[in-house]
């Protein structure tokens, strides 16, 4: 038993290092944890053997899987139902194109250029079809666009885009059988009932130190996750949908959401992201760097190719179209979830997983850098004056 505690201590030490690096370098913790996982596996593996981190241990797999499920639920719960009511047609149009263009384009590149199998290529398409609501939302907040219908439509498009990714991940690799029908039927009933039952149940029994709300939500997520996996699907699919259907109720309970975040960031997601990083093979990446660059390039090109015309159809100007198409080319969380799903189900091998995760990390950083470099808010693009307007210094 002591080896389990020592192993847990090692993983949490890595999580702590990743968090400190994230604070010092102003990086997102998720990105830092992936990189720390990769480096730790490389270094610790070189000195103590490849099994030193024991990323396949059942309890680490469980904590990591729970992290992915709760994280996906919280992401779905952040949806603002109001945004769909204003410009749903545009959101669906842009969101679907934002999903299908890279999904089909990257799958084609993996199949025809990189020579991957059909299933591996579809997985590559899914992993690279995601967008990042957070990146778009952060820029909206910076520019004050989050309150405009323009900004709301783009945010809604991002949710639709990711919904496409989650549905594809949940259904494309599972043969349609009686189990699938049962899973879909039960899920539909639960999704209809949850928004009615949950707030009433919480009002009656919640808000106590026994944390009934967290237990109820975890029960729902685990039960539907189990049903999804039984049907050959993926547990994050119902988790995202449960989040979306509860966004108008549970999602607005800030205290509850904060408590769930504490559980998620403090214990669950470090295991998820470090584990995702630990499976990345640096030798494979160094051996064929062009593969991951090709996947990254394909994601950006196909997003731009798909989104530029469709945003133009909604009468956005040239620079706005390029700007939002670039921002919708980002993505991290769902990209790694998809890649890890592929590796765990032997749809892709470790080298293909490494290329995909590297491309996903690249897509989290590079499009934003390009957007910021060339589309900075206009007041920072004015010519620099020789002297400041006026400067006083009080000692």
């Amino acid at each position, binding site marked *: 038993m002591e080896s389990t505690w020592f192993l847990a201590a090692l993983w949490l030490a890595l999580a702590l290092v990743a968090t400190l690096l994230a604070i010092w370098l102003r990086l*997102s913790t998720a990105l830092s944890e992936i990189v720390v996982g990769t480096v730790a596996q490389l270094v610790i593996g070189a000195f103590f053997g490849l099994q030193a981190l024991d990323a396949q241990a059942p309890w680490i797999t469980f904590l990591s899987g729970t992290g992915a499920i709760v994280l996906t639920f919280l992401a779905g719960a952040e949806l603002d139902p109001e945004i769909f009511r204003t410009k749903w047609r545009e959101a669906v149009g842009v969101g679907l194109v934002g999903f299908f263009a890279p999904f089909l384009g990257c799958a084609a590149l993996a199949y025809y250029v990189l020579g991957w199998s059909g299933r591996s290529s579809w997985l590559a398409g899914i992993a690279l079809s995601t967008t*990042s609501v957070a990146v778009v939302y952060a820029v909206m907040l910076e520019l004050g666009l989050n309150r405009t219908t323009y900004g709301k439509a783009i945010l809604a498009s991002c949710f639709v885009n990711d919904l496409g990714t989650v549905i594809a991940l949940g259904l494309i690799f599972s043969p349609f059988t009686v189990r699938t029908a049962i899973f879909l039927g039960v899920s539909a009933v639960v999704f209809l009932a949850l928004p009615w039952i949950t707030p009433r149940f919480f009002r009656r029994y919640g808000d106590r130190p026994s944390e009934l709300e967290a237990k109820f939500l975890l029960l729902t997520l685990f039960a539907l996750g189990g049903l999804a996996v039984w049907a050959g699907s993926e547990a994050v699919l119902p988790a995202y949908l449960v989040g979306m259907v509860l966004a108008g109720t549970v999602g607005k309970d800030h205290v509850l959401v904060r408590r769930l975040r504490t559980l998620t960031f403090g214990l669950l997601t470090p295991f998820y992201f470090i584990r995702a990083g630990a499976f990345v093979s640096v030798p494979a990446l160094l051996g064929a760097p062009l593969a991951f660059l090709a996947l990254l390039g394909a994601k950006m090109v196909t997003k731009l190719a798909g989104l530029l015309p469709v945003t133009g159809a909604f009468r956005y100007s040239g620079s706005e179209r390029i700007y939002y198409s670039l921002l919708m080319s980002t993505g991290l969380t769902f990209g790694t979830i998809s890649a890890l799903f592929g590796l765990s189900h032997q749809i892709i091998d470790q080298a293909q997983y490494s290329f995909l995760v590297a491309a996903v990390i690249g897509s989290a950083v590079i499009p934003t850098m390009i957007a910021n470099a060339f589309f900075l808010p206009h007041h920072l693009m004015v010519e620099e004056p020789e002297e400041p307007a006026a400067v*006083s210094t009080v000692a």
Partner: protein
Amino acid sequence: MFSRILVAYDTSEHAQSAFEHALELAARLHTSLLVVAVARPSEPPTRVELEAELDHARTHYEEAFARLRAAAKKRGVDLHTTVEVGHPAEQIVRTAEREHCELIVMGRRGKTQLERWMLGSVSERVLRYAHCPVLVVR
């Protein structure tokens, strides 16, 4: 002379000093104060983490703003507060323009060479891009 003064505030000692100078000026000139705090998301922002960071920043600054409001009330100064999101320099300049502020008051933090190289100096960027006079308090 100045109809509205903006103070950049991050709860540090330097920012507190800047606020006190700004309050003194506002009391003497009978102008209003706008206190601006900026929450800076980590890069690249990820969904749940971004919301958590923004939530934390709002709570953190709201507690600090309560103290500033009490101080302003004592001096009879009209004080408004806001929490913006993004790069601090960019948001300070942007808010000053949007709110038609005629003076920006801010502290200067003692950064190491590494921090300056990686993050840049907020006060230097504000001095470079602000549309109005800037008072940097050491």
